[in-house]
């Protein structure tokens, strides 16, 4: 497993909406991140199993599982990863229960500059 030794920050974005993946890829690449995307839970778990990312941006409602399930897996294998959850369904059961594992929780739409600001701060301290 690769360690987080490289200079470039890494982020994995998990969302079943392709346009969201596309726009956030460009946003974070512009900010100098190395971006990985996953469209479903299984894909994201495969990728998370091979690499420890600095940041994980995860949608809650995925076609095959809940984003919160991925969250607990990351917490177990890579606790230092900054975990940001965003969702279009703010009142799904169980979302708030996972708060303890989240570094931030947003309801879509969220301005990218807000995520970027939070990440800057979190990455500085971690």
């Amino acid at each position: 497993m690769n360690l987080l030794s490289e200079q470039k920050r890494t982020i994995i974005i998990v969302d079943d909406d392709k346009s969201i993946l596309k726009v956030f890829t460009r946003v974070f690449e512009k900010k100098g991140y190395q971006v990985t995307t996953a469209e479903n839970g299984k894909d994201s778990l495969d990728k998370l199993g091979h690499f420890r990312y600095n940041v994980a941006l995860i949608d809650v409602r995925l076609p095959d599982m809940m984003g919160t399930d991925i969250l607990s897996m990351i917490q177990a294998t890579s606790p230092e990863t900054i975990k940001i959850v965003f969702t279009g369904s703010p009142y799904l059961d169980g979302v708030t229960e996972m708060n303890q594992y989240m570094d931030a929780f947003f309801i879509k739409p969220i301005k990218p500059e807000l995520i970027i600001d939070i990440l800057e701060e979190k990455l500085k301290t971690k």
Partner: protein
Amino acid sequence: MNQVSRACHKFEIDSEEKYRSIIQTSSDGFWITDTSGKFLDANDAYCNLVGYNHEELLRMYIQEIDVNGSLARILRHFRASPNQRNYHIEIRQRRKDGRHIDFEISATYSGKKRIEQIFVFAHDITRRKRNETIIRQSESKYRELADSITDGFAALDADLKYIYWNKTYEKTTGISSDLVMGKPFFNLFKKNSDTRKIALMYRKSLRTKQPEVFVNDFFMNNNKKVIENHIYPSKTGIVVLSKDITKQIILKEKLEEYTQRLEDLVKIRTEKLKTAERLATIGETAGMVGHDIRNPLQTITGELYLAKTEIEFLSDKESKTKLIESFSIIEEQLKYINKIVSDLTDYSKPLMLNIEEVNLEKVIAEILSRLSVPDDIEVKIIIRGLFPKMRTDLSCLKRILVNLITNAVQAMPKGGKLCINADWTDKIAIIKIADTGEGISEEAKTKIFKPLFTTKAKGQGLGLAVVKKLVDALSGIVTFESEIGKGSQFKVEIPIYSAL
């Protein structure tokens, strides 16, 4: 037999034989005593009736047989009225076997200056007496029975004169039986619509010989009683039974009231259930719509961010300015879409109140700084000094005020005056938000708090529905006054200290 021949002489019967045969064949008893009561003679019928034989009787005095002193009464009568030589009374004697025997006797005497002998014919009336007693007893039994009936019970003859009036009637009307007996109905009761109706029913039953039933109201000590009257034709007139059914009527009315209340309750619950179902449907739809709109919103927000960063590299100043303006409008409209989606989800989500200390002044100031109120709208805030710190749900309160202020602003597209007034009583905070805008039409007034109703050309019309829901959740009241062309004022009253 000297006595008998003397008697024959007295009754002018020539032959003793004739006299004897008459006396002996009579089934009634006959005896003769002197004034001391000693039996001088008696016929066989008497001997049989009292159970003594002839010899025994002639050794006896009548006092030994008399139960109620017949001889004394007879002598007293004849001495008092010397002209009357016949005396009829009822007496009782004791037979040899101890049983009593009743006689109706006819007595006379012999002697001119003074009474010498008493002659008595005695007719056995024991059976008649017994029957009389039985009749008397049974009559008193019936009377007792009629008096013990808890219903009013009366009998009237064919002229509607009272021949019986029981204790219950005495009690309920306050008129004693003595006053009623023999009096006609209308002598006792004043003629009015009620008594006329009663008399009419009595007469009908008399005429048709059919029972009748009717109900009338009766006032006693200012208490209304409901009486059910049964009239039965009798041989000589009618019998009336009056039953106090006030309690049953009250029970029936109560039952009807309960039934009505229950029906109302069911109606209200059904209505609530229908509303709940409708809201649940709205909720589900809202959830879906929310999710489906939020994703494209996210993409647009992201793309807008990228476009704004790209704009920096544009050299054409004019294009740059125009693009920045466009982006700002897009951003503004995104905010609006977002608000609609939030309203939808707010309205449909179950509320979880989080009570905390709230400074109303600060909340209003914060809301006004966040909402961009156009310059042509004058904002006036009047908050009564020393406004108490509230304990309520901050986000609910905020949302209520944001929606009401947004509505007020939107009601004044050509500018106007927005007035926010906050006052309090000891327990209630009163917040008024007034505009000088278009006002609300009469038609719109009735459904303004209903979800998905709007007077705006755009928007989901959930703003006021959300306000209502949130104010309800805070145990408050929201009301409004509005006049077309002059403006509207919404008044929110919520507890300063929420009980939750």
